[in-house]
C-alpha cells in the first residue's frame, strides 16, 4: 500500500509541475493569437497604448466608436477600450488595469446606457484565461468572475472545452486600436420577445463608477458621458428610461461631466445603419463617430 501511495504522490507532483509549465507555455501562445478578446487585452497589459482619448463601454462602445475618425477629426491618438457584454463594473476594472500600465489619457469617452449600471460577471470569462499569469488581471478578475475551484487552482484545467487550435489563429489582427466595425445587415432583433423592459441599478457598480469618476478628477482626466444611438423601436420598450437617465444626470452634475445623447439621432430610425437594435453596423458607426468627434470638438474638451 505504501508503495502504491508513494507512486501516486510522486506522479501527482510530477503532473502538477508539468501542468504548470504547459499552462504557462499555452497561455503565452494564445496571447500571440488574433483571438479577439485576447487582442483587446494585449495592448492594455503590455502598456502599448499611448492615447489622448480612450473610449470605454460595452460592445456598444467597442463596435461603434471608430478611432480612425476620432483621430482625424480631433487630431489626437485615440483607443477603444470597449469590452463586449460588459456593464460598467467590468469597464471600470479594465480601465484600472489600463491606468496602471499605460500613460494617462486626456479624455475618457464613457459610453452609457440604461442597462450599464447592472453588474456583469461570467460573460466570455475565457478572455481572462491566457492572462492568469498576469498579476493585475488575476487579482482583479479571478476574484470577481465566477471561476470554479478547478479553474483557479489546477493548472491548465481552465482551458477545458475550448478549441485547442486557438493558438494557430494568427494575423491579420481583428481589431484596430481596440475597435471592430461590424459589416452586418439588420437581423430584425429589436427586443421582440419583451413587451417592456425595466433596468436596475446595482449598488456595487454605482459605487465603482463613482470612485472611477473621482479618480479621473484626481488624475485630471476629463470624462464625457455618451448615450450611443439605439434603434428607435427598442428605445420605446424601455419603461424606466427617465429614472436611469436621472441616475446618470446626478453623477454628471456631481463630477461636472458633459453628456451627449445620440439616442434620438436621425440614424436611429433607419435599420440600414444597424445590424440589430442595440448595435450600429460599420456604416452607422462611422456616421455616429463622426458626429461624436465633431461634438467633442465643439465642446472644446481639451
Amino acid at each position, binding site marked *: *500500500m505504501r*508503495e*502504491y501511495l508513494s*507512486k*501516486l504522490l510522486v*506522479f501527482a507532483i*510530477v*503532473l502538477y509541475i*508539468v*501542468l504548470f509549465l*504547459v499552462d504557462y507555455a499555452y497561455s503565452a501562445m494564445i496571447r500571440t493569437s488574433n483571438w479577439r478578446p485576447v487582442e483587446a487585452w494585449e495592448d492594455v497589459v503590455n502598456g502599448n497604448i499611448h492615447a489622448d482619448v480612450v473610449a470605454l463601454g460595452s460592445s456598444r462602445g467597442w463596435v461603434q466608436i471608430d478611432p480612425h475618425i476620432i483621430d482625424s477629426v480631433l487630431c489626437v491618438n485615440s483607443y477603444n477600450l470597449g469590452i463586449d457584454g460588459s456593464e460598467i463594473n467590468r469597464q471600470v476594472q479594465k480601465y484600472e488595469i489600463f491606468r496602471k500600465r499605460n500613460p494617462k489619457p486626456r479624455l475618457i469617452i464613457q459610453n452609457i446606457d440604461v442597462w450599464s449600471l447592472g453588474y456583469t460577471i461570467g460573460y466570455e470569462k475565457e478572455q481572462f484565461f491566457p492572462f492568469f499569469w498576469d498579476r493585475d488581471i488575476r487579482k482583479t478578475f479571478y476574484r470577481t468572475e465566477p471561476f470554479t475551484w478547478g479553474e483557479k487552482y489546477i493548472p*491548465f*484545467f481552465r*482551458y*477545458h*472545452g*475550448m*478549441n*485547442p*487550435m486557438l493558438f494557430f489563429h494568427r494575423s491579420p489582427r481583428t481589431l484596430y486600436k481596440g475597435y471592430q466595425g461590424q459589416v452586418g445587415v439588420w437581423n430584425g432583433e429589436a427586443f421582440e420577445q419583451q413587451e417592456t423592459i425595466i433596468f436596475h441599478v446595482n449598488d456595487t457598480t454605482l459605487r465603482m463608477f463613482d470612485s472611477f469618476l473621482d479618480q479621473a478628477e484626481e488624475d485630471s482626466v476629463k470624462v464625457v458621458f455618451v448615450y450611443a444611438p439605439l434603434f428607435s423601436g427598442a428605445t420605446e420598450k424601455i419603461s424606466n428610461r427617465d429614472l436611469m437617465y436621472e441616475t446618470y444626470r446626478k453623477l454628471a452634475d456631481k463630477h461636472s461631466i458633459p453628456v451627449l445623447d445620440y439616442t434620438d439621432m436621425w440614424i436611429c430610425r433607419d435599420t440600414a445603419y444597424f445590424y440589430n437594435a442595440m448595435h450600429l453596423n460599420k456604416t452607422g458607426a462611422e456616421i455616429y463617430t463622426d458626429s461624436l468627434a465633431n461634438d467633442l470638438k465643439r465642446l472644446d474638451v481639451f
Partner: protein
Amino acid sequence: MVFNSIEYAIFLPLVFALYWFVFNKSVKVQNLFIVIVSYIFYGWWDWRFLFLIAFTSFCSWMSGLLIQKYSQQGKKAKAVSTANIVLNLAILGVFKYYDFFATSFAHVFLGGKTEGLLLNIVLPVGISFYTFQALSYSIDVYKGKIEPTKDIVEFFAYVSFFPQLVAGPIERATNLLPQFQRPRIFNVDMAVDGSRQILWGLFKKMAVADKCAVFVNEIFSTYQSQPGSNLLLGAIMFAFQIYGDFSGYSDIAIGTSKLFGIKLMRNFNVPYFSRDIAEFWRRWHISLTTWFRDYIYIPLGGSRCSKAKIVRNTFIIFLVSGLWHGANWTFIAWGAYHAVLFLPLILLGKNRKYKEVVASDKLFPSVGEVFRILMTFLIVVIGWVIFRAESIGQAWEYLCGMWQWDTLRAGYQLFIQRNLISRTGVVLMMVLFEWLNRKNEHGLDLQAVKSPLVRYGIYIFVILALMISVENSPSQFIYFQF
C-alpha cells in the same frame, strides 16, 4: 452518482481509504462496508429504488438456499428456480417494458388510446444489469455450477458492488462471489493497473464520447436538413461515442474494482478491429453476449441442432438482446439486423473464423484485413443508426439520406466549422492507443513499457488531452438507461 463527477472524485478515495485502513479487519466487515457504500452510491440517484434492489437480491439469495434445500427433489428445486426467474423478469417487465407493450397494444387494438393503461413509472438505473446478475446466480446454483452462499451480506455485496452496479460488466456468481468469500490482499501492480484503466476509461468517456455526443446530437436532431456526408459522419461519430461511453464506463468499473482487490470480467476487447460480425459480437459487451449465450442460446440447443433451430435460436438471442437495450422497436430492429448479418456465418460454420485479435504477431494489418475491418465497421455503423434513431421511420430516413453523396462539400465545411478536427483527433488517439494495446486488457496497459519516464510521459499526455477535450457540460452514460 456518476464516475465523471466531483462527488465520485471525493467518494472513491474516501471509500478506498476506509476499505483498506479502517474496515480491513475481516472479510465480513469489508463486505458489509461494500454493501453500505454501494447502496449510498446507488441511492444517490433515487433512494426509493434501494428497496427494489434489496428485494431482488433477497429473493435471489433465498432462492439459492431453497434450491439447495430441495436439491434432492428435482421438481421443487426447479419450481423455486423458475419462480425466481419469473419474479425477476416480472419486475424488469413492469419497470422497463410494460408501458412500451401497452402503448404498442393500444396502437394495434385501441386506436392509440392509452388513457388509464400506462403506469408511467421511472426506470430504475441499471435494473437490467443487476437483475441479470442476480438471475445468473440462482440459475448457476440450480445447475450445480456454484454452491449457494448462506451469508446474505456477501450476496448483497455481489449484486450491488458499486463499480459495476449500474452499467456492468454483468458479472457471474462463479467469478465474483468467490472473491467476496476470501480475504483480499492489497496488490500494488493490480492497483496501479486499475488506476491506469480508470484514467483510460475517463479519457474514452469524457474526451471521446462526450465530444462526439455534441456533434451527434446536432446531426440526429436535424437529420432531415443535413446532407448525406454529414449524416454518414454523424453515424460514424455515434459509433465512437457509444464505444467510448460504454467501454469507458467498463474500464472505470474494472479499474475501480482492481483498487479494491476484485477482478471483474473484461467487457470489451477492441470490437472495432473485428473482421466480421461474429468476431464483433465476441468483442462487444462480452458480459451480456456470454450471458445470453450461456443462459438462452445454449439451453435452446445453440448451434448443435437442425438448421431451422439454429435460425430460430440466432433470431431469439439477437431479438432478446435488442429488447434488453430498451423498450423501443428500434432496438428490436437493431437486434434483427444483426441476426440477419450473423446468420450466414453461423450456417456456413464460419462464425469462429477469427479467434485471435487481428495482426496479433505484427504491427500493421494486411490490406485484406484492413478492408474486412472497414467493411465490418461500416455495417456496424448502419446498425448504430437504427439503435440511435427514435423510431424505425427516422432510422430509415436517416439511412436513405446517408448515401446522397452530392453534398460532400457541405460535409467538409461542417468539418472545418464545427471544430471536428479536435473531435476526430481524440477519436484517432483512442484508436491508436487501442491498436497498440490490442493484445492487452485496455488501451493504457503499459506494463511492457519499462522506462518510468516514458510511462509518465504517456499518462501526462493522456491527461492533457483529456483536460483540453472535456466538454463543459458532461453527459450521462448512455447505458444507464438500459
